[in-house]
């Protein structure tokens, strides 16, 4: 009988397509929008993965990694003096304008690394050598810079140059870096040269990057650094969570994406729920005939739930399949951001299950209430 229940579902092609379309659209909207949201949240913390260190030290007022409150250079030595610190190096990190050779401007994320150790260097070089940063006016740019410059008609290659704050910046290497939240390209140089490029200010140190001694827990060192007046410290995981929390709490991003996800769920409930109800409603006479012929309520419930879950599973599969196609295209193009953790799939799956349960239950109540005698009317 269950096989025949599925035949009943597939046989009503118009309703089946409508149901499948509604659930597919619902799953697509929920997973695709959640994927873009998660990708965006990932972008907010890309600096933490591009500059991979165990502990970040910053001004006490800093709330998240994309916020820079400059500190005095002396803070590096104060951090170095904390017990359990293996090494501590300065980092310049700021948004600044680059002037291209055609006279146009391009905002860049200038990243000044400690010239002795190159701590925070890009993970992957695609051309040139990071050590060449020690050469005069040398910078390393990421793949996003290449793409952005190209959009302005400039093919940036190793050996080319542009200006930062009226000073020459010569490209000695090209690296791969995760895109930042604002989408500006990363331009790496040494800390000292970054201070020359940066507009003059009394304080210029953005962060102090720290590694604890072997065997000393990072959290313990963080606690000790926090005792220094005026500065704060976070483990990279802590800074990651804090940054995402900040964006969720203080920006409209979750509300915007959440609204679309909610609409997706509501549209799914409305379309799929209504169509499934209509499907059951139109089949009530047939189901009542089965009831008259000896089908119990349990069997009818099994049939209705099987129909609902079959179409739900297919809709979820198609919706998430389409999302993964979109996601792959997004990731190839580089934007919009996209990241699909399993939790999103589980969430979307639960909503689809809820929609199926809801519509099947509503339909089933009608079937259970239907007297088998209606077949004589």
């Amino acid at each position: 009988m269950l096989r025949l229940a599925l035949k009943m579902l597939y046989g009503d092609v118009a309703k089946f397509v409508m149901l499948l379309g509604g659930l597919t659209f619902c799953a697509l909207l929920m997973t695709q929008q959640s994927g873009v949201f998660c990708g965006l949240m990932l972008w907010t913390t890309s600096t933490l993965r591009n500059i991979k260190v165990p502990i970040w030290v910053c001004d006490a007022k800093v709330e998240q990694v994309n916020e820079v409150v400059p500190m005095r250079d002396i803070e590096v030595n104060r951090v170095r003096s904390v017990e359990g610190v293996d090494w501590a190096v300065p980092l310049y990190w700021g948004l600044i304008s680059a002037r291209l050779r055609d006279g146009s401007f391009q905002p860049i994320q200038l990243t000044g690394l400690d010239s002795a150790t190159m701590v925070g260097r890009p993970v992957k070089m695609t051309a040139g050598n990071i050590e060449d940063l020690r050469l005069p006016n040398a910078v390393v740019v990421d793949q996003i810079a290449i793409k952005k410059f190209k959009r302005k008609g400039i093919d940036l290659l190793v050996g080319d140059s542009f200006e930062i704050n009226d000073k020459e910046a010569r490209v000695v290497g090209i690296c791969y870096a995760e895109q930042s939240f604002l989408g500006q390209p990363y331009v790496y140089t040494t800390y000292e040269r970054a201070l020359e490029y940066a507009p003059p200010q009394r304080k210029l140190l953005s962060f102090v990057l720290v590694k604890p001694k072997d065997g000393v827990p990072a959290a313990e060192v963080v606690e000790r650094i926090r005792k220094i007046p005026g500065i704060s410290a976070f483990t990279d995981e802590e800074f990651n969570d804090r940054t995402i929390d900040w964006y969720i709490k203080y920006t409209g991003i979750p509300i915007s994406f959440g609204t679309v996800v909610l609409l997706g769920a509501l549209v799914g409930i409305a379309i799929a729920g209504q169509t499934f109800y209509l499907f059951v409603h139109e089949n009530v006479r047939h189901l009542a005939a089965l009831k008259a012929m000896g089908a119990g309520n349990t069997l009818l419930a099994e049939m209705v739930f099987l129909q609902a879950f079959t179409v739900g599973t297919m809709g979820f599969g198609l919706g998430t399949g389409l999302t993964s196609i979109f996601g792959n295209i997004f990731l190839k193009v580089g934007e919009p951001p996209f990241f699909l953790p399993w939790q999103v799939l589980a969430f979307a799956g639960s909503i689809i299950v809820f929609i199926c349960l809801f519509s099947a239950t509503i339909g089933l109540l009608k079937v259970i209430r239907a007297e088998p005698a209606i077949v004589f009317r």
Partner: protein
Amino acid sequence: MSENRSQIAVLTRGVTKTFGRGDNAVRALKGVDFDAQCGELIMLVGPSGCGKTTFLSVICGTMKADSGSVDVFGTDLVHLGGGKLTEFRGRNVGFIFQQFNLIPTWNILENASIPLLLQGQSRRKAQDAAAKLLTEVGLGERLDAHPRQLSGGQQQRVAIARALVHEPRLLICDEPTASLDAATGHKVLELLKASACREDRCVIVVTHDSRIFSFADRIAEMEDGVVTGVHNSGEYKAQYV
């Protein structure tokens, strides 16, 4: 007429059924006394709204009577619980509806095998039995056809095959010829009479169609919620048609 006529198939006494409450209450059955015997084809006739279909629903166990007794092959349907009543219907009652009630998305083989599938028989066994009966009613070449591909008469033959496939003892037919032309209706009744009127089986037909009265062993006349008289078909036709 069968030799086994003395065995009572359906016996009802004082059956009442009221729909609605208060001022809107409609008393559909007002104490129906009725009996049908094994091997008999009995027709229930009467004007529209006299309670025929309600009474049919009560004796086949798809509707509960408010009061009175309903005994079908020795089983008291009034006191049978929901699950047991469903099981009783599944095993003992075959239905032929005015609108056929074939499931349009299933082919006729699947439609005809439903009662056996509901009894838990394997698909293969159920479909073998259904195919045999469909062949007997002249549809052996069209087992894969869907109901919408068949004429009204052919659909009713599928419904007959479905009603008989599990060999029920009570066959309930509600206006089986109402959607059919005279010739097809005649053939359907011939089929019913031939295949259903066995000594262990009883056929009850509700109808308005005077053209088929001659197939009845007896005709029970209903009016205003009660059985007003029972006649043999010749007597009834001579008197009323």
